[in-house]
């Protein structure tokens, strides 16, 4: 198990390292390439919750981006597992969703730093993620 070495993504002096957990292959590539080209982030992707959790444990990224609605393990469960594991509990999580009628109380209870709604403004995506990471966990 890798030791936790994540840093504050807002004040990182090197490339921000992110793990993106998203089941839609097209959107996975769009977000990955947007953050890589647009903000020089180092983005690792995973197509589902279990693979994403394993990637987070191994890579200890600065931030985790999780699609809320995925088949099998959804974004809430990914949050619960990552935040319940001492090896990953300090890593900020940002939820991604296309749902309009989110349960705000459930989002708060998830421990995620916040939610970014689809459709994404690709030019502002990195800044939006960092803005949420700069806020205290709700």
């Amino acid at each position, binding site marked *: 198990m890798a030791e936790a070495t994540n840093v504050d993504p807002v004040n*990182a002096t090197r*490339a*921000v390292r992110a793990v993106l957990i998203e*089941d*839609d*292959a*097209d*959107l996975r*590539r*769009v977000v990955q*390439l*947007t953050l890589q*080209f*647009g*903000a*020089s*982030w180092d983005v690792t992707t995973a197509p589902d919750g279990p693979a994403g959790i394993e990637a987070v444990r191994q890579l200890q990224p600065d931030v985790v981006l999780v699609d809320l*609605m*995925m*088949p099998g393990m959804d974004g809430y469960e990914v949050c619960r597992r990552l935040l319940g594991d001492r090896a990953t509990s300090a890593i900020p999580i940002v939820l991604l*969703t*296309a*749902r309009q009628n989110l349960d705000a109380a459930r989002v708060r209870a998830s421990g995620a730093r916040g939610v970014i709604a*689809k*459709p*994404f403004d*690709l*030019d502002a995506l*990195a*800044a939006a993620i*960092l803005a949420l990471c700069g806020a205290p966990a709700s």
Partner: protein
Amino acid sequence: MKTGKHIPAAVLVALRREFAAGLPARIAILREALDELERGASTNAAQRLRLTAHSLAGTSATLGATELTPHAERLESLGRDWQENGGRSPRDLAEARRALEQLATAGHSVAARLQSGDAQ
């Protein structure tokens, strides 16, 4: 963090083309799920309809294929209702079929537009 850079236009065009190329497969999954639901099949088909439509709604809107988004959202909404509540009225099934056909029609024009590299 470096700022002020954007995803290169050529990369975005390539991503949109990939999305367009994958549209028929997504629509086929939706059609198959709806066919199953019309035959009275399980919540499994409703879940497939819901999740596939959900993905399509989010991705289409992000990639500028917004003509698809309302139809995908309608299918997602119907799929969610069927998955959570079970029953499917003939009226709702007909509405889903209509939304799917509208989605397929819009998909043809979106695919042609995105394949040509025009996002507008």
